[in-house]
């Protein structure tokens, strides 16, 4: 069984608002899939439906090929961390994890200490959860996820509130879990650069619809280099370029700047064409789009995550 998570025509409606439109999604074994979308795009709702916290309005969820009554059993092989993890505020980390260890029928008592060591909370023995910083709470949430040696992690904003060092540690940890333990990961985050460093698949969601689903290779291909030229007369430059290259894909930006998405390999010829025809080229550069720029180009808007 290669598919860990599969959804078929999944929808979610809240009164008059449709948060998830018929959504088909498959997560395959070994993938680290980043779910990317703006606030309100439907990411958390999608995660909550997968976790069973919310009921879908229609459609089906299959986990490890199981659905219906068998879903709960299959869910035990997946660890979910959706939004802020909740723990007993008056309990220490050990007590909180012990509560869940008993609940999930994990026999090995040492596992509590092992996962606390993995996330760097082993030293905080006496501190109560209510006194934890946001980053510590997130770490404990990840520790809880790891408690049952899951085959798949579903993490909604797991690095929220972590400092730079913490983010790096969690990234390394997730990479290690994926490589050494073959744990499949579905993750969302506001920090797109982190996702870029971690994921090997990128799914873009907008208004409850998956608008793009790319592998890392394809994303790199799609967000490949573009030429940025600043000239003294953009209208004339565009005219020259379009006359010389019929298939040219360009965008005129403010301040006489032109972005050319193709013909990057002909950059020298393009430059010469403009100069020889009397267009002054003030600046000529080749730039690669990062995930953030690609995301903004795809889903638009000023807020991302």
């Amino acid at each position, binding site marked *: 069984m290669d598919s860990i998570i599969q959804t078929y025509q999944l929808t979610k409606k809240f009164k008059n608002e449709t948060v998830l439109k018929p959504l088909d999604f498959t997560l395959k074994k070994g993938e680290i899939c980043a779910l990317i979308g703006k606030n309100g795009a439907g990411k958390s709702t999608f995660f*909550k439906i997968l*976790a*069973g*916290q*919310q*009921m879908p309005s229609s459609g089906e969820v299959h986990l490890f090929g199981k659905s219906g009554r068998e879903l*709960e*059993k*299959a*869910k*035990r092989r997946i*660890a*979910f961390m*959706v*939004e802020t*993890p*909740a*723990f*007993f505020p*008056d*309990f220490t980390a050990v*007590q909180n994890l*012990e*509560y*869940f260890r*008993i*609940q*999930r*029928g994990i026999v090995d008592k040492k596992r509590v200490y092992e996962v606390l060591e993995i996330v760097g909370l082993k030293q905080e023995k006496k501190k109560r959860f209510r006194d934890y910083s946001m980053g510590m709470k997130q770490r404990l949430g990840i520790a*809880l996820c790891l408690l*049952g040696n899951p085959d798949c992690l579903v993490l909604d904003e797991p690095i929220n509130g972590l400092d730079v060092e913490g983010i790096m540690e969690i990234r390394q940890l997730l990479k290690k879990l994926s490589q050494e333990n073959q744990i499949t990961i579905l993750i969302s985050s506001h920090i797109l650069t982190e996702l870029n460093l971690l994921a090997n698949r990128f799914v873009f969601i907008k208004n409850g619809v998956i608008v793009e689903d790319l592998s890392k290779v394809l994303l790199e291909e799609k967000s490949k280099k573009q030429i940025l030229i600043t000239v003294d007369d953009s209208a004339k430059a565009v005219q020259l370029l379009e006359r010389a290259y019929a298939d040219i894909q360009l965008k005129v930006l403010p301040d006489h700047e032109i972005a050319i998405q193709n013909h990057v390999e002909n950059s020298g010829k393009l430059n010469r064409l403009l100069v020889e025809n009397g267009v002054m080229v003030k600046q000529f550069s080749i730039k690669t789009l990062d995930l953030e720029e690609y995301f903004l180009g795809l889903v638009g808007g000023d807020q991302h995550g």
Partner: protein
Amino acid sequence: MVNYMKSEYYRLLRKKGLHLTGILCYILIAFAAAVLYFFGENEANFPYATDRFFYSNVTAAGLVIIIIGLLYNMALTGKDRSLIKQSISFGISRSIIFWSKLILTLGYFLLVCVIGMCLMLLLGDTLLTHEPEAMRNFLIVSVNMIPIVLSGFFLGHALKMLKVGDVYIIIVMLVIFAILGDLLRFLLRPFAALDAVYKYAPDTLLNDNLMSFVDGAPQLGIQYWIVGLMISLAALLIGARMFAKQNID
């Protein structure tokens, strides 16, 4: 289910506030008995230093016991409700959560009640003047109270699990267990066929039970069990069904 109950038991054992509430109740019971004993010994013609009067306080406190039960529910299911979403994520069914929490909370509440009752019987028997049949009558009215008190407990649990606000829960409890009888009597008076329905309201039944104890002639009554069972079944079945479909996030 066993694992979930074990984990909740682990949590329950570490709820200091809950244990302190129980201890406080026992101290108040002992204090009441001590006060009655003190005045009985030191005041001539003090009429209340009797086991019958002592027991009548519990018989009259049906609503208070229901509210204490609600407090136990709030402590064990209310504040910790945010953790339920994680249990659900880990594949524990809503049904297991609903019934496990009920069984555990009820078990603890019943334990507190049984200890409290034993303490009362012990203090009433050793410190206060005996009146004929007082202990027997107290046990009879206690048996009559059980289904009504439990129905209040179940209703409180169902409402708490359904995330109903505390103020609304208290209002519902007060309406059903404090004023429903009067309300029905007033509303159904014009309908001859229904004007006796108020007699089966929980508050009317609790009141009748108290009066029968005061009169010294209580009897076991099936009506307490029928009404208690009806409220309990309705609360639990509807509650469990709604909880199974509820979004928990």
